[in-house]
């Protein structure tokens, strides 16, 4: 059937084709879009969101959801600033502290969900609130910057070390001098790691099985609770890495930054469902989803679209991708071969 094959093709490659068309269009319409610098800029703009989105993907795979990632990232941001500026610790210690904090939050989320049977959305919503509040307590609600005035009247002695700022600001040479920022490299490394883990190891396969039918997965011998906890810990760790990179880029512990991180990264993971007709969470799709949003925003910005239209554009892509995933795939399976279940 011709129409079936067309639908099949559209579901598989439609989103990637759309991405290619967009790139071609912007290359022609916006001068300067098709350049290495612009590409590096786009990658940089999506790197942190993308890292968080990869963590969300892991929780989506086990049919969970982590609402706390945004606040884990901002907590990591504040914690790293606090550790270096006020406690005067080294960059390395600050990074270890933040990652440990992310893992711990993930562990607590996981335990709340599997041991205390709190539904995932509610547990992580609670954790989100808790962290948003907690990160403000040590500084009495103020942002942290080098030399800030402390409550006891003295000034903070510590600074963001150069090694830490390197994480957010250094650019590697690639064809051009100082082209690829460190966060982009970290984003790509994490994307490859999670892609391999979910797609090509038995642990990833079992996590998909748990997300699809938890009871069946436990009856083939999978330790369902452990895998769920691991998924939330991965999510916590990636979120804290995102927070560290944000802190390193900003160079201060800004209480108000990172507001959009949660929504943007969840959107990227959900847009990822539509890539290659996967109709399920997957690392490759998530990375493409994040890029898609970045490319569209960059292109529109270069064509002088005002900044306040950005969220509207993101929302429109998300809705389109979801329709694409759920409506078209549903039609495909309904019109496809034998649905004859007796």
């Amino acid at each position, binding site marked *: 059937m011709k129409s079936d094959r067309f639908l099949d093709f559209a579901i598989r490659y439609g989103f990637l084709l759309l991405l290619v068309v967009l790139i071609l269009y912007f290359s022609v319409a916006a001068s300067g879009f098709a350049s290495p610098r612009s590409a590096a800029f786009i990658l940089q703009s999506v790197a942190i969101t993308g890292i968080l989105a990869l963590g969300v993907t892991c929780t989506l795979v086990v049919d969970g959801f982590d609402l706390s990632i945004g606040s884990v990232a901002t907590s990591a941001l504040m914690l790293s600033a606090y550790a270096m500026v006020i406690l005067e610790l080294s960059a390395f210690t600050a990074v270890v502290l933040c990652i440990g904090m992310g893992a711990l939050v993930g562990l607590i989320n996981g335990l709340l969900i599997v041991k205390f049977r709190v539904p995932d959305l509610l547990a992580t919503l609670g954790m989100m609130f808790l962290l948003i509040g907690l990160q403000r307590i040590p500084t009495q609600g103020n942002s942290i910057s080098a030399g800030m005035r402390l409550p006891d009247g003295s000034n903070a002695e510590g600074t963001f070390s150069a090694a830490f700022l390197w994480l957010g600001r250094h650019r590697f040479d690639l064809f051009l001098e100082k082209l690829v920022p460190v966060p982009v490299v970290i984003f790509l490394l994490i994307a490859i790691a999670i892609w*391999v883990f979910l797609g090509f190891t*038995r642990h990833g*396969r079992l996590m*998909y*099985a748990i997300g699809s*039918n938890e009871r069946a997965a436990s*009856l083939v*011998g999978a330790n369902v609770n452990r895998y769920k906890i691991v998924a939330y810990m991965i999510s916590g760790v990636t979120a804290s890495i995102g927070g560290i990179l944000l802190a390193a880029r900003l160079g201060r512990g800004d209480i108000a930054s990172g507001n959009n991180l949660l929504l943007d990264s969840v959107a990227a993971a959900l847009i990822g469902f539509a890539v290659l007709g996967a109709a399920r969470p997957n690392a490759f799709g998530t990375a493409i989803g994040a890029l898609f949003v970045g490319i569209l925003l960059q292109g529109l910005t270069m064509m002088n679209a005002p900044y306040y239209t950005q969220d509207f554009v993101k929302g429109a892509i998300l809705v389109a991708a979801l329709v694409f995933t759920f409506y078209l795939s549903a039609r495909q399976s309904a019109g*496809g071969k034998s649905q004859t279940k*007796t």
Partner: protein
Amino acid sequence: MRKNVCKLRGIGKSFGTNDVLRGIDLDLFAGEIVVLMGANGAGKSTLVKLICGYHSLDSGDMELDGNPYLPVDPAGAISAGIVTVHQSIDDGVIPDLDIATNLMLDHLTRPNAGLWVHDRKLRQEATTIAQSMGITTDVRTKVAHLGVADRQMIAIARAMARSPKVLILDEPTSSLSATEAERLFALLDTLRDKGVAILYISHRMSDIRRVADRIVSMRDGAISGVFNDKPLEYDNAVTAMLGHAMTDIDITPVESGSPILEIRNLQLEADSPLINLSACDGEVIAISGLLGSGKSRLAEILFGQRKPYGGSLLIDGAPYAPESAGDAVEWGVHLSPKDRGTNAVIPTFNITDNISLPFLRSFTRLGLLSGNRQKHSADNMINQMGVVCQSAKDGINTLSGGNQQKVMIGRWLLKPCRLLLLDEPFQGVDIGARRDIGRHIRASAKGRATIVFVAEIDEALEIADRIVVLHESQIVGEHRNTNIDLNVLIAQVSGAVNTETTSTAL
């Protein structure tokens, strides 16, 4: 002349290139129970879905009471007087609401229903309906707290509250015990006397013998036989359904080898009698009993899902006390659970990934899964089990029930084991696939002990060397599968013999 309530002529339906129904003619008369038989994939469910408005038909005519009938959606079918009780019970009830609300849902959705809900009145009406169905539980109980059988009765009660002209039941007894099924049959008798036309879909011969006034066999989307004359020719109906005659199974019990599993003084309930049983190399044991006899519990204990109240287990002489399913698999104990939809199938995976799931570790090299080796094993198992599919990459949900079950059992045959447990392996499986599975289990039985948990005696007789009967957590009978006195066996299963363990022909 009886009244022809529902008349179908030349019904056709295809999905894509697949013609699922090809020119079905069917008449349903008032006051008659028509049993529709068909192997998995014959098109029974599709036919039902057409009649009750889930699918639209591609060709043919339907008439209801002499008027053209063309439901646009399920609600249209219901208001026209055709009510269906579906196979999966949870489609029929809303677990989080109480019995009263569940029974009265249709009253709440009627166009002329008022804005306010009168709880007291609702409960009174619901109680009346419930009592007429023999449901005595307080109507304020949440449906989620009820057993499967009671939920099924509620789904049927709801259907009845609509006073239908035509009642369609899709495998209604698949999760009922014998006594509960008898309650349902008694109800069907009453409805038949009231002049309702009933279409009853089932695989179970015992059900069919009990209720059928007429049998219609379907095969490959067409009617392959109609049996009107009393006495009904059941064997011919099965032949028409399968397209070939069913050979009788002739089991020669094997001389079993050394014991593999030993169950010593096991207690299933706090104060229940002790169970002693051993399962030997090469032997297939069927443990038979009604719902609630303790056979599921025994299976759970053997697979590490539950702790016994007392006693011990030995495998190859070593004490065996599994903590979890993973633990049991490590010991070489494999269980294919009952209710494959809930407990076994990973709906988003294809056949290969479903088969290889328990043994992913053995397909892993340097931490990465090898797709080729998985596919190779899966292809192998598909051939051995005779799974009908286009390729090992087909989604599991494109398979019919019988083929899905073959995949689920094949999953556990992928690696050799010491003890294979099959809990209701023939649930929702047509007789052809059932024979395939049984044959394969017996053929591969060497090198392990096999225990099959089945409620139906027919199924036990088809597969086992030895049949053990459980009743109320106690072994009440043990038979070698040659010349069994069926009357004794049936009496033991139903609990009519409640003496000390009676052994025959051992």
